[in-house]
């Protein structure tokens, strides 16, 4: 390998006056920054600013700062471009990235504002009025016929397909066991159970210990079919077919053999040390008809559980979604280009796909125009950062949102974006036992439960101010959104008015 000439991204400053040489930083750093020679010596080039050492230094003697190394200023040739070229000219490979796109594309959620009631239309106080966040995901009938039973109760005469009951309109996004640690999976499942929502297994199968959480699990089937068998398909409340991922539309997954240890091997059902390749297309799906074949193969194997189809938000997303619904999917999962990943080529993560806000609005519009919106629920994902993003997504037409990165941040993730190295110092995106032990699933579940509780309170507060008492009445209420600083065409696609109108 050629000599590395790239300047370090960060500088690790140690206050030697405060440092008591306890070496806790050496133990905590999983990127090998520290060595000890009479005193703690950092190798700046290895630091990724994950903040683990900073948080665990008992003397607060460590500071990680951006390397002020002077690059001659150019707004065009940013340090990022230069550093990437140096790296690639040394190694001759594609750049890898973890988490979602970090480039400053416009974030439309931040250019939309919610409405509220004043004077003539009363708001609702969620503290003393019932406020309904319960949502059902799944196919709804075109019409409903109701009959009265002998004991005077009302009963549906119409057959209603199986539904997934969510107490909050927020689910945990698919993150595979293999990408994330088993403790991460456990924390997500325990929290999902506690809150009354679901987590999606991702494409790496479901660990034997976790089958007990079936009522709060959606199992995923991807092109590699890892760990997929009839028992797995029946383990959860629904099955998700992964076609694409927002962070890497049209790109497959690749879990390198080094990460396939004993437990991953058992769960994915492949030999230890073998590469797990999930190519971009399912090689048996080249059309909507082929997709329909897989949807119904899964339905036949699961006594007609709801089937979800997850796609990346791409240019033509509306007609693709229409095809997916017509293929028989009960849920369409849309993942915007800012969605996270454990590993993706940086060039794809940063430059492919479209924002979830536009994709969601376009899909909801198309399904309504075609009169098939009731046939499937929509889940929106791809960087839902707060309850406000969730509420705006629901106003744009989503039935629920999915959170991946936000959940990991709750578990301790510092968004250092080094997920693809497998060295996560916080024990999340790693399989190294000494690192995974750092994440206590019980504590993690408590943090996640707290997060969803907090967001639920905030959503209720927002609904109250809008004078709406059920999330299902709020879905698709674009009239309650206004755009600020958006051009006419963007407003048109979002189906919202500019603020002031």
């Amino acid at each position: 390998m050629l000599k590395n000439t790239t300047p370090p991204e960060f500088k690790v400053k140690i206050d030697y006056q405060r440092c008591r040489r306890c070496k806790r930083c050496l133990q905590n750093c999983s990127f090998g920054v520290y060595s000890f020679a009479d005193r703690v010596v950092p190798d700046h080039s290895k630091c990724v600013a994950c903040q683990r050492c900073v948080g665990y230094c008992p003397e607060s003697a460590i500071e990680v700062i951006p390397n002020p190394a002077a690059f001659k200023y150019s707004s065009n040739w940013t340090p990022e471009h230069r550093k990437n070229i140096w790296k690639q000219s040394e190694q001759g490979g594609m750049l890898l990235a973890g988490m979602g796109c970090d480039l400053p594309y416009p974030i439309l959620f931040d250019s939309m504002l919610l409405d509220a009631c004043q004077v003539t239309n009363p708001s609702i106080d969620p503290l003393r009025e019932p406020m309904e966040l319960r949502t059902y995901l799944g196919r709804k009938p075109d019409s409903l016929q109701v009959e009265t039973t002998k004991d005077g109760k009302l009963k549906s005469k119409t057959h209603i397909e199986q539904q997934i009951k969510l107490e909050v309109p927020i689910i945990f996004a698919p993150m595979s066991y293999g990408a994330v640690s088993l403790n991460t999976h456990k924390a997500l499942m325990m929290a999902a159970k506690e809150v009354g929502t679901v987590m999606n297994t991702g494409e790496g199968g479901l660990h034997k210990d976790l089958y007990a959480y079936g009522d709060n699990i959606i199992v995923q089937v991807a092109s590699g079919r890892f760990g997929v068998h009839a028992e797995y398909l029946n383990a959860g409340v629904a099955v998700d077919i992964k076609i694409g991922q927002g962070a890497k539309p049209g790109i497959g997954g690749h879990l390198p053999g080094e990460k396939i240890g004993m437990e991953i091997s058992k769960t994915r059902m492949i030999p230890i040390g073998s590469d797990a390749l999930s190519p971009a297309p399912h090689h048996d799906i080249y059309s909507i008809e082929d997709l329909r074949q897989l949807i119904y193969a899964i339905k036949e194997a699961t006594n007609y559980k709801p089937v979800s189809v997850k796609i990346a938000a791409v240019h033509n997303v509306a007609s693709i979604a229409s095809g997916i619904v017509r293929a028989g999917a009960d849920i369409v999962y849309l993942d915007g280009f800012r969605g996270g990943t454990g590993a993706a080529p940086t060039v794809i993560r940063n430059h492919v796909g479209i924002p979830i806000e536009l994709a969601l609005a376009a899909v909801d519009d198309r399904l309504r125009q075609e009169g098939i919106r009731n046939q499937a629920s929509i889940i929106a994902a791809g960087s839902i950062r707060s309850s406000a993003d969730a509420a705006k997504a629901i106003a744009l037409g989503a039935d629920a949102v999915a959170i991946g990165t936000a959940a990991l941040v709750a578990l301790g993730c510092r968004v250092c974006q080094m997920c693809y190295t497998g060295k996560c110092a916080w024990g999340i995106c790693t399989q190294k036992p000494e690192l995974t032990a750092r994440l206590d699933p019980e504590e993690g579940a408590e943090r996640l439960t707290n997060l969803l509780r907090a967001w639920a309170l905030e959503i209720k507060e927002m609904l109250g101010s809008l004078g709406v008492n059920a999330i299902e009445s709020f879905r698709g209420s674009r009239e309650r959104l206004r755009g600020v600083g958006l051009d006419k065409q963007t407003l048109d696609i979002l189906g919202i008015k500019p603020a002031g109108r």
Partner: protein
Amino acid sequence: MSKQKVKIKADAVYYRQLNEQIRKSIADGATEIELTGVNGQRYIGDGLHDRVKIIMDGVPGNDVAAFMNGPTIVIKNNSQDGTGNTMNDGKVVIHGHAGDVLGYGMRGGKLHILGDVGYRVGIHMKSYKDKVPTIIAGGKAGDFFGEYMACGNLILLGLNNTADEPLIGNYTGTGMHGGVIYIRGEVEAHQLGAEVGVKELDAEDHKRLKPLLEEYCADFGLELDKVMDKPFIKLIPISHRPYGRLYAY
């Protein structure tokens, strides 16, 4: 308790109802089910895990034995696409030709086809512990045979194949990173994916092949000697890690 051998008439029965009847019969204790009049119904045997035998006379629809985990299915006719999709265990015996994408992601069990097979047969085949899947096709095969194959045995016999027709299509073993493909006959270099190499069979291979072919011959009443009268070649991946040096860190 109903009788162990049952007959189900599939004539003009929609697949959903047909598969319901099959599952009900198994729940009622059937160990052998004969389907008559099968005509394109999909998903027969989908997700079944009991030790049951299903025999049918007509041509079933796509995805026979998808996610299947144990039963034996005998098709006395042709079979269509997707047979053995993500199959975990069991056996499918096809007394005719079979379509595309057979045994996708198959993890265990056997697919025995007497005739020709289509495109993308045996792709993503895996194995796990004692489960090693085997597909044996008696005729010729289309493109992408064994694509992305990770484990298992994929065998192409080319019985009754004339010299002027190709035994196999192009891109054979593209992306293959495990398992083994045995072909009775020759394959030209341009028909192979970049990730596979051609080898001669050694004693281990013959030891592995013999019982597999014996069972295959027994299923169709073929003579093993006649199957073995022509030399086989072996295709294995050149590297277990065909996708190294892709990334910069």
